[in-house]
């Protein structure tokens, strides 16, 4: 088990924010610090994630700027960029630093703006997102990120018989969960019929199979295990795994395995001393409905080939036996790229504390977060557990 604990968690609403990046991050950071009951002067370091600020808003070297904004200038700040897995990688490095005794108490978080408040409309933002695919061997085809996951999902449909109705069931489930999350970008339910009538983005994905462009920020306070008991509501870090897979996607050994997720999950479960069956719920990277199907299989929440069936049968719903994305996931909660990884850690923390309100998973002592970046090229899997 990792010798680390999450002792504070906070996030903004995900949605549209006509607010500067540092102000948005500050809102999440102070929520996390207040939740932990500490001030910025208690921090030893900041682990910060922002994936695309240089491309979207002409803003780079954000680390010292956000640190200054929250009254923490002078701290060592490391900034992470791993496409959509940006702040999960920041979390991994923070956990390893306190586990190793390099730091005692650190702030981890991320911020991103992806909506038209950046001045970038859908075609331009689609191109910026596509920069996380291979510049020479993928982008020249006109590939987009819905396209990346469409290629993986179509292969899964071919090999396992996954259907468009099963994909729609993932969207219906996550929208239903999102109605219980006051910070979700989308707060209304949908139906399989409504999903299947939407305009096609990249087949098999229609509009409602896709997560939105969102703005938002999230943050957590991480401490060494020996300090956990001096805080009100610590949640233990069981383990964190991190792996990459071959890019471009055509050269991956298996397009439906999302092997990096399998490797990261194995590493995290081994460190935590658990198997997938011991986990009570998971937050997975459902940037598209098909991505949740692949993810739930890769982390062992559904047998290979049955991720779609599990969703359609309600087994991955809040009331099912293998709950996935109680927060509403990226699909309903929203996906401000660099904030998504630590937002999953926020959800795990609240679920394990038992403070998730109407979206509370029953008996939620062990939670798994799966945060994926690029064309299934990076995945970080984290296991959080009730404090022992």
């Amino acid at each position, binding site marked *: 088990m990792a010798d680390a604990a999450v002792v504070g968690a906070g996030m903004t609403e995900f949605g549209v924010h006509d607010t500067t990046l540092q102000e948005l991050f500050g809102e999440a950071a102070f929520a996390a610090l207040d939740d932990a009951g500490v001030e910025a002067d208690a921090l030893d370091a900041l682990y910060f994630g922002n994936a695309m600020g240089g491309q979207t808003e002409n803003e780079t070297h954000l680390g010292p700027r956000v640190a200054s904004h929250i009254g923490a200038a002078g701290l060592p700040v490391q900034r992470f960029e791993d496409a959509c897995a940006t702040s999960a990688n920041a979390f991994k490095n923070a956990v390893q630093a306190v586990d190793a005794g390099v730091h005692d108490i650190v702030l981890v978080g991320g911020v991103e703006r992806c909506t038209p408040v950046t001045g970038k409309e859908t075609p331009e933002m689609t191109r910026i997102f*596509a920069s996380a695919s291979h510049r020479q061997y993928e982008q020249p085809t006109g590939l*987009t990120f819905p*396209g990346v996951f*469409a290629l993986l999902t179509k*292969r899964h449909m071919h090999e396992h018989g996954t259907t468009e109705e099963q994909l729609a069931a993932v969207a219906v489930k996550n929208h239903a969960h999102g109605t219980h999350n006051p910070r979700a970008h989308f707060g209304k339910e949908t139906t399989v019929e409504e999903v299947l009538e939407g305009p096609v983005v990249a087949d098999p994905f229609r509009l409602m199979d896709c997560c939105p462009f969102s703005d938002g920020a999230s943050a957590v306070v991480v401490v060494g295990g020996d300090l956990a008991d001096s805080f009100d509501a610590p949640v233990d870090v069981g383990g964190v795994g991190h792996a990459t897979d*071959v890019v471009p996607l055509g050269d991956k050994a298996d397009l439906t395995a999302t092997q990096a997720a399998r490797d990261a999950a194995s590493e995290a479960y081994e460190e935590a001393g658990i198997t997938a069956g011991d986990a009570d719920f998971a937050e997975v990277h459902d940037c598209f409905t098909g991505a949740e199907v692949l993810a739930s299989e890769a982390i062992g929440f559904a047998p290979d080939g049955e991720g779609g069936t599990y969703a359609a049968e309600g087994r991955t719903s809040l009331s099912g036996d293998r709950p996935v994305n109680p927060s509403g996931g990226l699909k309903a909660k929203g996906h401000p790229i660099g904030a998504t990884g630590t937002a999953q850690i926020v959800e795990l923390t609240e679920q394990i504390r038992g403070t998730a309100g109407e979206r509370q998973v029953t008996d939620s002592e062990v939670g798994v977060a799966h945060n994926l970046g690029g064309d299934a090229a990076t995945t970080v899997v984290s296991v959080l557990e009730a404090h022992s």
Partner: protein
Amino acid sequence: MSDLSYDEWADAVREGRLLGLACSCGHTNGSPTAACPHCGSRDLERVDLPTEGVVHTETTIQVPPATFETRGYQVVVVEVGDARVMGRVEGDEVDIGDRVTLAGTIAEDDDHPAPVFEAR
């Protein structure tokens, strides 16, 4: 280190050829790397890949990125011999398992060529 650069691969695509790298581990790479991405060997053999193959997966993109003017184009991953290559399809749409043949290139993206396939 392998002796296949991106520029050589791209020039070959423009000439109607697909170049790959074969490794003694059994993997053949459809795009140049300095070493085998699966086993790390730098002892890779440059190979001419077949220009006919089978569709491994496909999608048709209706919301393109900026710089791509026309929506509704099909992107495929094609099995060419022991390797896979990503490209476009022109003409009739194809399904997984269909046979396709290399039919040209597109260069809509800053002169970066992409192979174009068509149904056989």
